[in-house]
């Protein structure tokens, strides 16, 4: 566990303003070789490095980040955590992640503001309520909290939804996971970075990997904008850019890069006390601690690396907001942004070994990268250290599509752009 932050240290610094706070994470020069290299200083990469150091005793680890840490999706998402997954290979993994979130602020000695405010998914038809029931039952049978709410119960919890006759889709009820919630996203990157740095991990920013070195079929290191760095274990955790980096090692992957937009309104006093999502179309909203309504929907629907969204999709998402929560029509949009997500044909990720020895892959997260961060780092560290799948992430193998083991949680079919 990392150390050093508390109300006492704050008081100490307040009383002695001359004494500056220490750097949250060190900024060392890269060494010429490491025992393990993680490409990508996002949430997953930093978490992986932390668990490599903490759980697997590796001392000599580097995280190579082309820009600044946390500059990818860990700082661009809608901050939701949940474990309402029903397919076999998903359920335990995401529940592990949710359990890890519960203790993360203490583990990292960094307040990630983990808020278990609950997630409520609103259902719009009896058939949808049946599919919610299946999901909720699976959750209960796996020790995960879940409850079905009928329309009356829901109205008590979420009085601001449109229950009127003029609603386009009627509200039938909802599936509620009370332990789900939100986390202050940037804090996750900084907290893992600080904790990893305290364990001796080198976090090297402004260091772009430009090539992956191989001898025969074995990884030997990477070329970077700050020179050649050797290692016989290289992990890729660069969601949004996975294809590009994997291609350096000659891999072609079941991944397409898409932009996912997110939105925040001006802050107002507390109004929405849960994460609320909807069964009519993909839509999710929560109110940040600062007061802004943070929300999002589906990907724009075509591959791009631009990190900016299209207006038609922004409008569609806002239509969802107003249709479900009429008060949103009076809220004012403060900022819209986009993040690059790795979309896969079945909507599920990869945490796995690759056909190249010593090269490991963590990617393909689609919409669900942020909530997966702790378990992803935890299991990927295991895979990198032991050269084998962790049992919790065994379903996220690269060859699952070849074997017909798709994990299509949404039931969409083999199109990246529809997932």
């Amino acid at each position: 566990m990392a150390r050093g932050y508390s109300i006492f240290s704050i008081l100490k610094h307040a009383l002695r303003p001359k004494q500056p706070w220490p750097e949250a994470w060190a900024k060392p020069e890269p060494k010429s070789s490491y025992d393990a290299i993680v490409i990508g200083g996002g949430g997953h990469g930093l978490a992986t490095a932390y668990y490599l150091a903490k759980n697997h005793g590796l001392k000599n680890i580097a995280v190579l980040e082309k820009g600044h840490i946390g500059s990818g999706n860990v700082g661009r998402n809608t901050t939701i955590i949940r474990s309402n997954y029903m397919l076999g290979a998903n359920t335990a993994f995401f529940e592990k992640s949710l359990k890890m979130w519960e203790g993360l602020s203490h583990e990292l000695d960094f307040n990630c503001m983990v808020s278990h405010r609950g997630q409520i998914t609103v259902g719009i038809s009896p058939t949808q309520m049946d599919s919610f029931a299946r999901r909720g039952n699976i959750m209960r049978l796996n020790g995960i909290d879940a409850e079905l709410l009928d329309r009356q119960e829901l109205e008590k919890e979420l009085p601001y939804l449109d229950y009127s006759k003029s609603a386009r889709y009627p509200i039938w009820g909802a599936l509620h996971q009370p332990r789900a919630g939100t986390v202050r996203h940037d804090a996750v990157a900084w907290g893992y970075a600080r904790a990893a740095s305290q364990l001796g991990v080198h976090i090297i920013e402004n260091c772009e990997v430009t090539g992956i070195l191989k001898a025969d079929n074995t990884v030997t290191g990477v070329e970077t904008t700050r020179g050649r760095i050797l290692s016989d274990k290289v992990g890729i955790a660069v969601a949004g850019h996975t294809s590009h980096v994997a291609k350096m090692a000659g891999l072609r992957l079941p991944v397409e890069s898409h932009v996912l937009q997110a939105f925040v309104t001006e802050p107002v006093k507390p109004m929405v006390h849960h994460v609320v999502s909807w069964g009519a179309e993909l839509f999710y909203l929560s109110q940040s601690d600062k007061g802004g309504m943070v929300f999002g929907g589906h990907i724009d629907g075509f591959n791009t690396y631009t990190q900016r969204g299209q207006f038609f999709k922004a409008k569609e998402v806002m239509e969802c907001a107003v249709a479900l929560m009429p008060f949103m029509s009076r809220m004012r949009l403060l900022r819209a942004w986009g993040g690059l997500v790795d979309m896969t044909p079945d909507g599920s990720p990869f945490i796995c070994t690759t056909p190249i020895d010593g090269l490991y892959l963590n990617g393909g997260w689609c919409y669900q990268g942020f909530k997966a961060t702790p378990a992803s780092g935890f299991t990927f560290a295991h895979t990198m250290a032991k050269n084998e799948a962790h049992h919790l992430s065994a379903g996220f193998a690269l060859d699952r599509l070849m074997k017909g083991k798709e994990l299509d949680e949404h039931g969409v079919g083999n199109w990246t752009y529809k997932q």
Partner: protein
Amino acid sequence: MSEFRYGGDATKKRPGPGAGGLKVWHEYVFTFDNPKGPHEEFWQHTLGCRQWFKLKRNTATNEILGGGA
């Protein structure tokens, strides 16, 4: 709803009926070049004439580079 819909990489060669084994079809259906830069792709004028067409677009800028061959 958008007037157009995306339909994926147009440079992939669909194996003919009855042709191609598991590996070929796996490659065709599930894997992508996903380049950052020029990309030739299918689009359909869904809320219009229903025509599927090829488009060249720079995925780094979304600039349209012209129609496909």
